[in-house]
């Protein structure tokens, strides 16, 4: 298989010929951006890993419905954002009923992030981002870390550009306040 295929060709190859190698190449192309988005949104590796896997499993099932009207990256981020927000809801419900394992995120982060400096960075990032409401956090991360345009974020979150700008502005102000103490 030609490894220099465009993502549109990879998607067509997977849909039309069920080529698993094409799907693996799509995973390799997007795994890092999806994982980092999930990690920033969720704050720990175990949850980020789980949701990243769920994103690609969903993608495997739903890729045949992709219409090539939007960019594949936007479509994948839409799936990711929905799964992340659903995961946060489930986590809140679990926490409410006392089923959430509070210990697991610390131990799992220590497995994946090996040196102390990186562990501290991750903890600080988590302490700042997790204080934002989910929707604001989502907009802030998509804009600030994933470098997406407001038009793309509007497609992903199904929100108007004006509302997104306001949301981002509020998030930035809160972040400024929180970062002053760091």
């Amino acid at each position, binding site marked *: 298989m030609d490894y220099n295929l465009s993502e549109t060709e990879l998607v067509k190859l997977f849909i039309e010929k069920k080529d698993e190698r094409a799907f693996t190449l799509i995973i390799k192309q997007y795994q890092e951006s999806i*994982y980092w988005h999930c990690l920033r949104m969720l704050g720990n590796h175990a949850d980020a890993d789980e949701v990243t896997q769920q994103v690609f499993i969903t993608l495997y099932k739903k890729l045949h419905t992709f219409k090539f009207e939007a960019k594949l990256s936007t479509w994948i981020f839409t799936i990711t954002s929905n799964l992340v927000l659903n995961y946060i809801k489930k986590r809140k419900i679990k926490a409410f009923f006392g089923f959430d394992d509070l210990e697991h995120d610390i131990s799992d982060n220590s497995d*994946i992030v090996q040196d102390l400096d990186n562990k501290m960075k*991750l903890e*600080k990032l988590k302490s700042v981002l997790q204080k934002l409401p989910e929707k604001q956090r989502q907009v802030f991360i998509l804009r600030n870390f994933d470098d997406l345009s407001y038009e793309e974020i509007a497609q992903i979150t199904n929100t108007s550009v004006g509302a997104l*700008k306001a949301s981002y*502005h509020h998030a930035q102000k809160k972040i400024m306040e929180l970062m002053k103490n760091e």
Partner: protein
Amino acid sequence: MNNDLFIKYYDNQLNDQEKAEFEAKLKNDQDFKLAYDEFLVIQQKLKNFANIYINDNYFVTLPVRINNRISANNKKLKIVKSAIAFSFTVVVVFFISLYYFNVSPDKIITPTNTNSFIAESISTSQQQEQQNIASNINTNTNINSEKNTSTSKEKIVTYSALESDDVELAEQDVDDFINNYQSVKIINIGK
């Protein structure tokens, strides 16, 4: 107040005129520039927090783990589909057999029709027993005919006995038959 402006400039939300005014102020107003530099330091600090190095091996093994999960899901899906197909087949065969053996649904015991079903079963078993006795008579005595009279509790049994022993045997069997009917007429019509 400045923060709002800094955020808009940093996020490229200012129009050309506002942008030009902002940049002019940065050049001319030292305090404004210091405040904006402080804003940029915080932004850089945040980006630095997000710049985390994780175990390289994670992204090497991730596609393999995803593909393994997809394969496992596909296997589970096949099992579920097979189970659904099997259950559907069983249900279809059941209903076809109900139709084929002409068993009406009210013959199926349910909590509402249990009593009627038992009553019907008893009457069926009694009829079966009577038929058995009649067939016994047949084997011994060549019964010629068996008629129901106008009342269902009366039975007329006619037989032809060739020998006297046969008559006795027939009468013994007919005794059992009598127990099941209020009135039985036995007529030996001879040869």
